[in-house]
């Protein structure tokens, strides 16, 4: 199963993924075209802030079985067999919010999209960039991520890298050369400083 794996420790909150996602879900598929469109395209991935100003890019996990799909009363949600994605038939969506009530990740959103002709809000959650996938391309958010926080591939392959790193670490005295690089000292130092700043101001928990 191909999926987008998130490495939260590598997310630096730049929101490139959000912009790339909005562009991908625009009519023009270009930045300069997208910002002038009506309805204006919205990102379907959300970079949220947590403790210590650390960030996490949250998007549809395309669960299987998918709670949203199971509860949808109109059959607007279905699974694309080729890509294992949970997709929305916008014309069938009645914006009742049942899917949002059961979504464990809180990533359902109701927005206007050019993909439905009626002037109403529909479930515009992540569609796994299904059009791109069918052209053999990776999802737009993953392509945009320059820090490796988002990776696309077979879930077991992606997990295997970490497993292999651990094996190297435990078997070599120096820790070996990991495939997933450690967080560099300077970045850790920066995060430690920002964490302290969150303790002395409005970011206090």
């Amino acid at each position: 199963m191909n999926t987008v794996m998130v490495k939260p420790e590598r997310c630096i909150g730049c929101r490139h993924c959000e912009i790339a996602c909005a562009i991908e879900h625009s009519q023009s598929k270009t930045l300069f075209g997208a910002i002038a469109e009506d309805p204006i395209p919205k990102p379907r991935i959300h970079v949220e802030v947590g403790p210590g100003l650390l960030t996490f890019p949250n998007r549809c996990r395309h669960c299987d079985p998918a709670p949203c799909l199971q509860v949808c009363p109109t059959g607007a949600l279905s699974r694309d067999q080729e890509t294992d994605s949970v997709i929305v038939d916008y014309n069938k969506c009645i914006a009742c919010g049942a899917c949002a009530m059961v979504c464990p990740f809180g990533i359902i959103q109701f927005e206007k999209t050019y993909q439905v002709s009626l002037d109403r809000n529909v479930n515009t959650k992540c569609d796994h960039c299904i059009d791109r996938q069918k052209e053999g391309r990776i999802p737009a958010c993953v392509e945009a991520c320059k820090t490796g926080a988002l990776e696309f591939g077979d879930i077991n392959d992606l997990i295997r890298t970490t497993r292999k790193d651990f094996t190297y670490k435990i078997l070599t005295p120096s820790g070996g050369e990991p495939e997933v690089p450690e967080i560099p000292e300077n970045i850790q130092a920066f995060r430690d400083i920002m964490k302290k700043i969150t303790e002395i101001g409005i970011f206090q928990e």
Partner: protein
Amino acid sequence: MYVDPKVLKEESEKRSLDKTDQEIVQKAMEDGLETVWDRLEKQQPQCGFGQLGICCNRCVMGPCRIDPFGGEPKRGVCGATNDLITARNVLDDLAAGAAAHSDHGREVIEVLLETAEGKSQGYKIQDVDKLKTVAAEYGIETKGERKETIAKNLALAMLEEFGTIKNEIQLVKRAPQKTQDMWKKFGIVPRSVDREIVEALHRIHMGVGADYVNILLHALRTSLSDGWGGSMMATEGSDILFGTPTPNTALVNLGVLKKDEVNIVLHGHNPILSEMIVIAVDDAELKKLAKEKGAKGINLVGMCCTGNELLMRHGIPIAGNMLDQELAIATGSVEVMVIDYQCIFPSITDTAKCYHTKIVSTSEKSKVPGATHLEFHPENALDTAKEIVKLAIENYPNRDMNRVKIPDKPMKLMAGFSEEAIRGALGGTYKPLIDAIVAGKIRGAVGIVGCNNPKVKQDYGHITLGKELIKRDILVVETGCAAIASGKAGLLLPEAASLAGDGLRSVCEALKIPPILHMGSCVDCSRILMLAANIAKELNVGIEDLPLGGAAPEWYSQKAISIGAYFVASGVFTVLDVPLKVFGSPNVVNLLTDGLNGLINSAFAIEPDPVKAADILEEVIEKKRKGLGI
């Protein structure tokens, strides 16, 4: 708008340290006013590439960014590495800061020139002694000359230095010889004020060098052209025109606004127009008009560094520092906020729209949509000032008294500690201070300067660090928002000496001075340089040898980078709390926090915890004391 009082209280305590500020933070929230803290929350998350300094947005082959985790991309399209991109960003920010200070300085000297030529309205040369002293440094004949002639020659000589081809700035020679020799050795003696800024802009262009060390050395040189050039000219020019400050007492915090008077807030940095407003409010006709409109009088208060300038010289009350600008308006009691430039929120006119407040912009280079623009020109400055006061009076009947809330207890403070005043109080020589330092009663001194930053609880950094240092017998001198913060907290009073260690306390009590001295606005960090320079000269050492430190605990602006850099380049070890945008380059971090030590016996440290910052500064001071054999 209803907000749970408990939530209001908790949130206000996160935003601001001062009780009077907290009171108005709560009112602003109840009023549904969007403030800087709300905007900061809406900006989360803030881009990591930008924060780490590894985003380059200069040319259109880009914008580019570097993977901070060591993967690809490792270079921008042009080939720039994380080191180069970070260094160029630092230089860019620093040059903007130096430009802001120096352009402010230029305008002061221009007014000095027009005043000397009899072309300005309302201005006088008020400190003839200083005029003569500075003129003598420039080799200008003062004996038997009219003060106007001296002032004209001095103004022309100073203005010439902005673009001079002499390859030197006169005021730089005020630094101790040893410090100057160090600058010569590393090729960072500033050659003119504008030149270093222009060259900085040249150097950040694509393809002008790829050596981050070379770029950062130029950043130091640019900062020196600010501290020992543009900023120092701003200080000296303002002193000559408006008088060199002497110790005074005044009031501070939002409580200086008055319920039954026309409130005018003077906000920004350059005192040239505000000084005329100080004269204008004494106009009998305007006073009469205020009475006719139902006000008991006209209440002039300062804000930020324009406020500091007026406080230092006239004891005009000061409403607050950078994060107080929206809060002052939120009291619902401000008829007019006059703005000149720097640190004025671009949204200030929208803030004002929620109340009856009018924003009056006065500088040709700093217009804000929605403001009433009454432009400052030296030829008719007093007329403009009167027009502004009249506008404020006429706006008084529009005040909705039901929406007014003013904290009721202004704090007392002591300000006006120019370098000359400090030296004067010591009997004309620094010997008594040096003796106290040698004897260990005072371990050293730290300049706490810089801004507010909504990422840090307002004033928390300044106050905690200040208290921590005086407790350890370290004298503190302050400018800018830091000084206003200490004022609000009651630390600028002689009584605050009780919070100091035994040694510092005894010195403060003997001299009847506070343990934290207010030395002026942010361009007046040049006064701190002069204090350090004169002490070093009496001891025949360099500034870098003295037991001094600097700190910018709540800095936000490019100007603060320039100040921090000229402190460090002048030999003063400086601690910042909010990180510089350099952590995407370990090499640049290492150079700024360590490598510079080997060049100029001083460096930066980044430490958000003010107590730990005090530990770092104390350690540096003790190390330098050891170096001096004391």
